[in-house]
C-alpha cells in the first residue's frame, strides 16, 4: 500500500441572508449606534432580540432600547486567538447582560489580561468607527473601569 493521497479542500462561501423584521431591526439599531431588545409577554427583555419567545414560542414585537453597558455573566479567556476570531490579541468571550436586559448576549471582551476578567464585572460597548448593520458593529466590549 502506497502513501495515502491527500489534498486540502476549502469550504468557502458567503451566505446572503435575509434578516426578517426582528433581527433586521436589531442590526439596523447597531448601525445607528443603538441596542434594542424585545419585551416578551411575561415582561422579560431579550437582548439580542429573538423572533420567538423561548418560553411561549410567541412572536416578539415589542422593541425596547437597552443600555450600552452591562454585566458579564460568564466568560472564557482565549490566550491564543484562532484565525477566525475577530480579535487578534488574547481576549475573552463572554455572555453579557446589558442594563435593562434580562438575557445575556454572546460577544467578545477586549481586556488587558485574563486577570482583569471576572464574572459580575461591568463592561461597555466599543463601537466600530464605520458601522454597517452587522454584529461586529460592536467591535467588542471593554471593562467599564478602564475607560
Amino acid at each position: 500500500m502506497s502513501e495515502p493521497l491527500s489534498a486540502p479542500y476549502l469550504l468557502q462561501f458567503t451566505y446572503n441572508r435575509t434578516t426578517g423584521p426582528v433581527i433586521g431591526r436589531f442590526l439596523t439599531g447597531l448601525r445607528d449606534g443603538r441596542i434594542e431588545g424585545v419585551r416578551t409577554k411575561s415582561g422579560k427583555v431579550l437582548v439580542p432580540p429573538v423572533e420567538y419567545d423561548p418560553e411561549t414560542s410567541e412572536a416578539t414585537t415589542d422593541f425596547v432600547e437597552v443600555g450600552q453597558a452591562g454585566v458579564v455573566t460568564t466568560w472564557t479567556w482565549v490566550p491564543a486567538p484562532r484565525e477566525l476570531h475577530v480579535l487578534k490579541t488574547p481576549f475573552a468571550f463572554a455572555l453579557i447582560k446589558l442594563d435593562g436586559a434580562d438575557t445575556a448576549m454572546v460577544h467578545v471582551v477586549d481586556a488587558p489580561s485574563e486577570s482583569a476578567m471576572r464574572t459580575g464585572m461591568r463592561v461597555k460597548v466599543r463601537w466600530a468607527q464605520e458601522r454597517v448593520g452587522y454584529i461586529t458593529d460592536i467591535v467588542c466590549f471593554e471593562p467599564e473601569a478602564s475607560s
Partner: protein
Amino acid sequence: MAENCAIIGIGQTKYAAIRKDVSLPGLLREAALRALEDAGMTFADMDAIILGTAPDMFEGVMMPELFFADALGAVGKPILRVHTAGSVGGTTGIVAASTIQTRTYDKVLCIAFEKQSESDAMWALSPAIPFQPQLVAGAGGYFAPLIRSYIRRSGAPEDVGMMVAVKDRQHALKNPYAHLHVDETMETVRNSPMLWDPIRYSETCPSSDGACAMVLVNEKIGKAHPKKPAWVRGTAMRTEATFFSGRDQINPLAGRECAKDVYSQAGITDPAKQIDTAEIYVPFSWFEPMWLENLGFAEVGTGWKWTLEGKTKLGAELPINASGGVMSTNPIGASGLIRFAEAALQVRGQAGEHQVDGAKLALGHAYGGGSQFFSMWVVGDSPV
C-alpha cells in the same frame, strides 16, 4: 393493529426565488402557523416535531433543528431531523406518520424547508472536491444522459418533455402558493435555451425559498376534527446504491418496489384506476413519463403516451401534479413534503382551484440522490 394517522393541518409558505421578508426561522414559522391554524391547534398541543431539510450547506447552519427549537415551539419537546437527500421531504412525512401509527405520539408537527436564496444551489450541491471528477456537467448533467436514455429506449417524441412543462406551469397558475406563475406555452418552452441537451431551461425546476408543514394526529383526534382529515393509507421507503453494475437508472427497482409496497398497504391493485391523482417528484419535465412507468401507472415504455394524450392534465383521467409540482416550485428539502401535502389537500377537497374533482385516493411521491432514494405515501378521504 396500527393506529390510523390523520392529517388535519396543512400549511405552506408562499414560494419564491427569494423570500426577502423573512429570516430563516421566520420562513418555517409561516408554514407551521398555517398548518396549526388549519388544525385548530397551537404549538403547545404538539407532542413532537419532525423536521426535514436537504444539506445544511444550503443555509450554512449545521444541524438547524437546534436553531429552530424556539420558532417551532419545540422547547421542552422532542425534535428529530431527517435527511435523505431529495426524498427528505417525503421521509419527513413518513417518519411523522410512523410516530402516530405506532402510538409513540398523538399529535405531531412535521415540517420541511429550504431557503435556497441564502446560498447558491450549484455550489451547495456540487462543490469542487479534490480527486473527484471535475465539475464539468453542473446539476442537470447527471440527469440529462438518463433522459436521453429514456427517450431512446421508449421512442418518445421530443415534444413530451415540453408538454409536461407547459401542463405543470398551467397547473401552477391555479395554485396561489406556487413559485412560478408564468403563462407557459409550447412556444415559450421550445424557445427557451437548451441547457443540458436534451433539457431546455423551461424543462427544469426553479430554485425556491419555502417551507411546508403538516399536523398529524391519531384516529380519535382526527375523527373529532371539524374539518375533513386526510388519512394515511400506506407509507414506504426504498434505497438502492447510486452506481452498480446492471443498474436500471431509468426505471430503478427501488422505485418499483417502493410503489408496490405502498399500494399493497393501501389495498391498491390497479393504481391507474384506483388512484385519483398523484403528486410526483418531477424536477426535469421528462421525469413525468419516466415515473409514470416506474410507479406502475403506465406500461414500461408507454408513460410518454399518457402525457401526449393529455391524460395527466387537471380534469383528465389521472391528473399529475395539479399543484404545478416541482417544475413550478422547488425548495429542495421541502419539495417531497409538498408532494405529500398536496396529495392530502386533494383528498380533503381543500385544493381550491387546482382541486381534482372527487379525489378520494392520492399518491405523494419523492425521490433523491441519483434516483436511488424513494419515499411515498398514499392518502385517502377515509381511514382504513
